[in-house]
């Protein structure tokens, strides 16, 4: 659990998140030396930014909407929030993790809390919690602005050629798949008001795997527009609003049997923040939010479809949170109350040639009302020691609003009810000691999560990973885990560091699909049916070693290896656990030019899970080359990023590539960002 401190960056973030409460940050839209960021800069996709986080892997079902996996746990065990707002994906096949409904240009940074030490708004975050921080230009300080918020390719001086309005243009092109990215943004800021917004367009054709073969159905197109507004009511009171519209169309999923014709999200919020002039109380923020997702699958462009089907899904969430921060003596305290109501509905209509359509409700319009109280305290102790404590308790009420879906599920669970109540909680503590040249930390926690709607009420959801139809189980018990973690870093000089960290999650009632031979599959060609069940116990362990050496002022080397393992109650491997992975890069810096050569790879996946339908993944290694050059142009700055990914055009797929779809082959990219 290495804390990446990011005070400089977050000072311009209009919501002050104490950086010491966060495990890891990836910067999306600001230039900031020494911080994690994608080599492709601002034009990189959200998925490419997420890939920079060291506890994160990404499950790929195509070239769009990758599913973040934290500590080798998929999104069931990870909380994802946008600026603290709850949002739930609308696809029964997980084609749209909520990270796919924002664009890089919307974001300031992505914050990761590993494990149970979640951010205040997160619930069910056994593996970790991601908070996508929106990019808000913020108010200018008094007196008149002289120091601008840091943006990519910040202007050499503080003034702007456009007077009070600042703008930015960005564009990118990638040869593999003819990826085109165009972005524009603008902002204005005064002491009393700020506004920033932008629009983004991203387009990709089918990409080519290593060796040059085209991967069909890997195209996508996406538009995104956003605006953030801030109004200072008094010196201590602020009102902020956000609106994001995101729409992806014609999205191919080569790993699945269907594509997506439309995935659309509206995300809005209104927040009121009060800054206290008080010895103990710091800030109090209350945010109201609403978001709506529509997701429409489409198989009409696929050849040889056995049965054409329509599979739309919708998700509505509205909620609020209220966060109070205070500090007294050695304590930094956060108290958060949150409440949200989410509705998930999905159905499926199949059209066999000539016969009557077949209809089923796959998510029975489940309404979830969830409310919780979270508390965290960072206690600074003498001798560079600190203790971080966090806890949350939440209660949720679920109701199945769709009669047809409810009666269909009752076929399998005759005793089930149409409403359920669950209570979940988490508590975690981390102790950190930072004597000179060392940083040591260890922590422990316990937390539980309620089953997801898919796990509890999903109906014949076909999983192409193992070719089984999955049926939810309303009788599932909450899953819980004990987490133990520790990290050590040795930094004998400013030029060298060596670190190791490890965590383990000891699960009770681990939720996973279990064979049900009694039932017959629905999907043509499916192997059979699985019903979600609780395993009495399971274990996931993650370890990593990393080193950094700045050999010369212009030359830095980084290296990292990681190993993870997962076991079920029979000591058999769990699926989708990363094999031994390594990455090493060399950074060369010369004047305005930065170059990075990177090697990354996985060894053969020996610990795969045939029991859960997983096949072994072969070892792979690729080499990437990235360069960045910043060109000052009068009062503006132009940043050019170019590189070659997978230089040797290797054909490979990782363990997290759904159905072993191959990764991109050689790809040359050029990205431009111009700040006005």
């Amino acid at each position, binding site marked *: 659990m290495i804390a990446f401190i990011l005070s400089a960056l977050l000072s311009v973030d209009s919501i002050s998140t104490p950086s010491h409460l966060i495990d890891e940050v990836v910067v999306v839209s600001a230039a900031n030396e020494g911080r994690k960021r994608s080599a492709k800069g601002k034009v990189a996709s959200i998925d490419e930014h997420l890939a920079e986080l060291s506890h994160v892997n990404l499950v790929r079902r195509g070239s769009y909407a990758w599913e973040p996996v934290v500590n080798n746990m998929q999104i069931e065990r990870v909380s994802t929030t946008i600026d603290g707002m709850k949002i739930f994906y609308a696809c029964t096949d997980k084609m749209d993790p909520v990270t796919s409904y924002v664009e890089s240009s919307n974001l300031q940074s992505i914050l990761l809390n590993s494990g149970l030490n979640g951010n205040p708004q997160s619930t069910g975050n056994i593996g970790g919690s991601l908070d996508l921080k929106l990019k808000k230009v913020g108010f200018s300080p008094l007196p008149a602005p002289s120091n601008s918020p840091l943006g990519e390719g910040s202007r050499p001086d503080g003034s702007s050629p456009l007077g009070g309005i600042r703008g930015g243009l960005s564009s990118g092109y990638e040869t593999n798949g003819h990826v085109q990215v165009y972005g524009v943004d603008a902002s204005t800021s005064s002491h009393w008001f700020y506004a920033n917004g932008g629009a983004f367009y991203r387009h990709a054709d089918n990409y080519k795997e290593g060796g040059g073969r085209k991967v069909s159905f890997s195209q996508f197109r996406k538009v995104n527009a956003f605006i953030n507004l801030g109004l200072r009511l008094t010196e201590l009171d602020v009102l902020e609003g956000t609106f994001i519209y995101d729409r992806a169309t014609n999205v191919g999923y080569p790993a699945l049997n269907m594509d997506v014709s439309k995935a659309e999200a509206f995300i809005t919020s209104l927040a009121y923040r009060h800054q206290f002039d008080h010895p103990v109380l710091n800030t109090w923020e209350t945010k109201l939010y609403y978001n709506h997702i529509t997701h429409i699958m489409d198989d009409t462009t696929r050849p040889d479809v056995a049965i054409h089907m329509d599979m739309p899904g919708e998700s509505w969430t509205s909620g609020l949170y209220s966060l109070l921060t205070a500090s007294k003596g050695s304590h930094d305290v956060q108290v958060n109350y949150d409440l949200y109501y989410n509705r998930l509905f999905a159905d499926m209509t199949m059209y*066999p040639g000539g016969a009557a359509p077949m209809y089923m409700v796959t998510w029975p319009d489940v309404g979830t009302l969830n409310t919780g109280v979270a508390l965290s305290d960072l206690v600074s102790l003498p001798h560079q020691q600190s203790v971080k404590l966090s806890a949350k308790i939440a209660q949720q009420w679920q109701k199945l609003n769709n009669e047809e879906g409810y009666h269909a599920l009752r076929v399998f669970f005759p005793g089930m009810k149409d409403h359920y109540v669950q209570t979940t909680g988490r508590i975690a503590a981390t102790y950190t000691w930072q004597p000179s040249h060392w940083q040591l930390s260890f922590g422990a926690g316990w937390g539980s999560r309620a089953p997801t709607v898919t796990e509890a009420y999903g109906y014949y959801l076909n999983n192409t990973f193992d070719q089984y139809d999955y049926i939810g189980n309303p009788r599932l018990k909450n899953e819980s885990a004990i987490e133990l973690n520790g990290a050590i870093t040795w930094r004998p000089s400013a030029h060298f560091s060596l670190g190791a960290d490890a965590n383990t999650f000891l699960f009770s009632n681990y939720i996973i699909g279990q064979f049900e031979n009694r039932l017959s599959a629905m999907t043509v060609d499916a192997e059979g049916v699985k019903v979600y069940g609780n395993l009495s116990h399971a274990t996931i362990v993650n370890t990593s070693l990393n080193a950094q050496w700045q050999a010369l002022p212009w030359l830095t080397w980084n290296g990292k290896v990681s190993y993870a393992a997962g076991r079920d109650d029979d000591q058999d491997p769990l699926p989708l656990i990363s094999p031994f992975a390594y990455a090493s890069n060399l950074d060369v810096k010369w004047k305005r030019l930065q170059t990075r050569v990177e090697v990354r790879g996985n060894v053969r996946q020996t610990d795969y899970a045939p029991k859960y339908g997983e096949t072994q993944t072969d070892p792979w290694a690729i080499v990437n080359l990235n360069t960045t050059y910043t060109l000052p142009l009068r009062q503006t700055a132009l940043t050019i990023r170019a590189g070659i990914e997978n230089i040797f055009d290797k054909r490979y797929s990782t363990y997290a590539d759904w159905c072993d779809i191959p990764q991109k082959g050689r790809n040359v990219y050029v990205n431009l960002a111009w700040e006005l």
Partner: protein
Amino acid sequence: MKTKVLMLFLAVASLGLTSCNSNDDETGIVIDGIDLSQDVDCCSAEEALQVYKFIQTVKIIPELSTTVDDKYEVWAYSKTGTLHKGYNDLYFVVTKKKTGNYVKFFDITSITPLMHMVKMDMWHSTPVGGNFEVFDTTRPAVKRGWVSLLMNTSDAGSWQFSYNIEVLGSKGGVQNKAINVDALPDGQEWLKSFKVGDDTYYLSLVNPTDWKTGNNTIQAYISKKNNPATTPYGLATETFTIEIDPRMPDMGSHTSPDNTPLVKQKDGSYQGNINLTMTGLWRIHLTVKDTKGNIVAGGDDLKDGFSSLYWDVTL
């Protein structure tokens, strides 16, 4: 239960009725066109209201409706006002012409559907339920029975119906009245037959259109062909068990769990439970067994492994 329901088509007429009807003050029930005065032969106001409500849910079959002695109107109903191949519920209601109220005591007997087979110039009947009886005591003036029609009207043949009725001593009925029998839409096969030795039996599936996704009661009758065939076929006196295996032919023969066989009930029908996981075409493969557990029909394995004896139901 003092439901106050006003169904006024003509406010003036209703006012006229209420003024000379002593019952109204008591129950507040007014039904347009019906004189609800005390009449031992007819329904009370509450019963009449229940009958009235019921007949709003069904439609008159004009061909089978008639008058008796110019005193009573006999109304025949089915769900759609028409008949179709397979099982049909039939309802009879008799009204007094004078008051419009529903008569509680009447008997429908000898209902005889006959089909004329054009090519062979032969006649045969079809499975029918026993007597027409009151099936819901809250509406004692509605009598129900059923017919299960072997074929629909076509160039091959046509149907005619006869029945006798006795209302409070007056006799009447319908004789050899031609009536159309509709075919069922594609994906619906509710009547199947099987042979044991020289005997022919018919399996009539009752009203599958009421089914919904989820758990449903499945009901059927087993009738036995008569000799001569022009006599309506009554229920088979033997006891069978009908095992069911519902499959979706369009979904790779997907099936559902926990279906229970149809077993004989006191009323002579067979009942079991069927689970349907979605809408669409369900082919319910049948295995008919006798009391000793011997297979008497179906249960054979075709190439696809399912019984060749089946009902089709499309939800």
